[in-house]
């Protein structure tokens, strides 16, 4: 049975250190039983920062006067070869949300390049229609990441001022369209700190996941809990989620959804990342760069990233760290097969 809002609230409000320790122990146990001591590794590649949505908290938003770039075919090869040479096999290709600058045809071209380097490709791009997801799936994309950011409609409207992202319901139904389009992996998430009612957001995310699991049981789901990071030149004030609450959210999620993946991003400081791995994390990005062309292109000197990463350790350091913690870094988690829908 689904956990209730008041139960979640009670857990987040509980300041007893023994309670937190007990929750963490339980989460660790569940993680080990269902995933063993493994951590999957992936890396993001930013293809473009063109964006037609205005989201007050994001460095890429349409009103922000930053330099806009999108990778050419040649630059894509350079970026992807670089990341692949590091040992990464799971790639997440990202763009800003611009149907004009990065239309379906551009995404397909990027996927064509990515297929030459990576066995598993996921996209975090603008929401699309079911038939577009189907085309991408058949083209070789296996996963879609789409965060609702916050499930609080009023707050959502406040921070998503214009563009397609301002349409709450179109975004909410994206996961369903992606699943119908055939996607194997779907990642949902909330941007912690956008809404001040963390329990409500968490509850609604869980409900969304529950709905998806019930209607599209064949999809492998994962959840992400990026914490808000300040963006250069923005005066956005957030409703900060402190470390204890963050840990509780990870542990609670692990115990409630034993088989669902939980991603950890480079936004977290090393001390948090290192200590939280055992408490339910199944996948982390490593050696990340959040600028367009940030791995190999000169532009990185002149460009602002989407958000500042707190953990800029090289992939080798991350692997070393995992091994030191007796965790097995998993690079290969999929072998591409021809994707077809019935």
């Amino acid at each position, binding site marked *: 049975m689904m956990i209730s809002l008041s139960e979640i609230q009670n857990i987040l409000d509980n300041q007893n250190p023994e309670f937190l320790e007990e929750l963490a122990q339980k989460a660790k146990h569940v993680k*080990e*039983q269902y995933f063993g001591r493994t951590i999957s590794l992936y890396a993001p590649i930013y293809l473009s920062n063109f964006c037609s949505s205005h989201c007050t908290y994001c460095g890429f938003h349409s009103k922000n006067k930053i330099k806009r770039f999108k990778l050419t075919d040649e630059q894509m090869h350079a970026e992807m070869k670089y990341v692949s040479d590091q040992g990464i096999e799971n790639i997440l290709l990202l763009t800003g949300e611009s149907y004009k600058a990065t239309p379906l045809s551009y995404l397909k071209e990027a996927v064509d390049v990515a297929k030459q380097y990576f066995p598993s490709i996921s996209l975090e791009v603008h929401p699309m229609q079911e038939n577009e997801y189907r085309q991408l799936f058949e083209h070789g994309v296996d996963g879609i990441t789409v965060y609702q950011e916050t499930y609080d409609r009023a707050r959502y409207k406040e921070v998503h001022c214009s563009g397609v992202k301002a349409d709450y319901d179109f975004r909410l139904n994206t996961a369903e369209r992606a699943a119908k389009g055939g996607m194997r992996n779907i990642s949902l998430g909330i941007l912690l700190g956008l809404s001040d009612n963390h329990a409500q957001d968490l509850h609604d995310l869980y409900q969304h996941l529950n709905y998806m*699991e019930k209607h599209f*049981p*064949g999809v492998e789901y994962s959840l992400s809990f990026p914490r808000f990071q300040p963006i250069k030149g923005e005066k956005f004030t957030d409703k900060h989620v402190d470390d204890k609450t963050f840990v509780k959210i990870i542990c609670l999620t692990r115990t409630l959804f034993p088989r669902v993946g939980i991603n950890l991003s480079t936004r977290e400081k090393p001390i948090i990342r290192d200590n939280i791995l055992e408490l339910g994390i199944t996948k982390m990005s490593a050696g990340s760069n959040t600028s367009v062309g940030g791995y190999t292109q000169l532009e990185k000197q002149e460009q602002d990233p989407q958000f500042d990463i707190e953990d800029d350790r090289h992939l080798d350091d991350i692997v070393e760290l995992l091994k030191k913690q*007796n965790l097995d870094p998993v690079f*290969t988690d999929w*072998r591409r*097969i021809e994707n077809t829908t019935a």
Partner: protein
Amino acid sequence: MDTPLIIGGKAFANRFMLGTGKFKNKSDLADSIRSSKTEIVTVALRRIDIDRHEENILEYIPENITLMTNTSGARNAKEAIRIARLARESGCGNWVKIEVINDTKYLLPDNNETIKATEVLAKEGFVVLPYMSPDLYAARELVAAGAATVMPLGSLIGSNQGLKTKELIKILIEEIDIPIVVDAGIGAPSQAAEAMEMGADAVLANTAVATAENPALLAKAFSLAVEAGRLAYLSRLRAPQGQASASSPLTGFLHE
């Protein structure tokens, strides 16, 4: 005393099979293979990295072990078939454990799709070991489709719950003439022994071993338990009874 287990024309003395997922490092896996003396291991094709040699799981599996590639990640028969073919093309041999799972919450196998994949792959010369929900009709169809064994689940994958499907597996043991390999949910050597005592031909375990503090030790314990259960089965041990029984309480009068 015992006869070897025959699958796909090969004979095996050891009846414990090991899964290779979830180990915290590859040397624990190699140690577990050694200590258990297992002769058949299963590896997910999705986890085999043929390009990069440092972490290639196959390097930790000795040559004399029979490799059974599994189709983990397949959501229907078509995908399972593609994965099996890819495995064979990659040099992983023609033994395939078919896993068709279209429910990521319970990881229960889809028997219908599994039957379809078995039929195609068996015709293509694969030795097919299908993972299934223990259902008599499905098992019969798998036999007709050319399966080399059937692998009914004891309980949900990774759950360590043991033989929750015991009564259904007993029916398969009684009625199905190809080897019955109990797979999934076996969380302790005692549960493996129980499956063997009731007549299963082999047991496959993974999670319990991989997540133990000392995997190699537990792998050995599993292997011994499987052997003990097998010997008990061959001994035609008596089923346990709830109360003491007098020698001939009902028919004694006939001898007076």
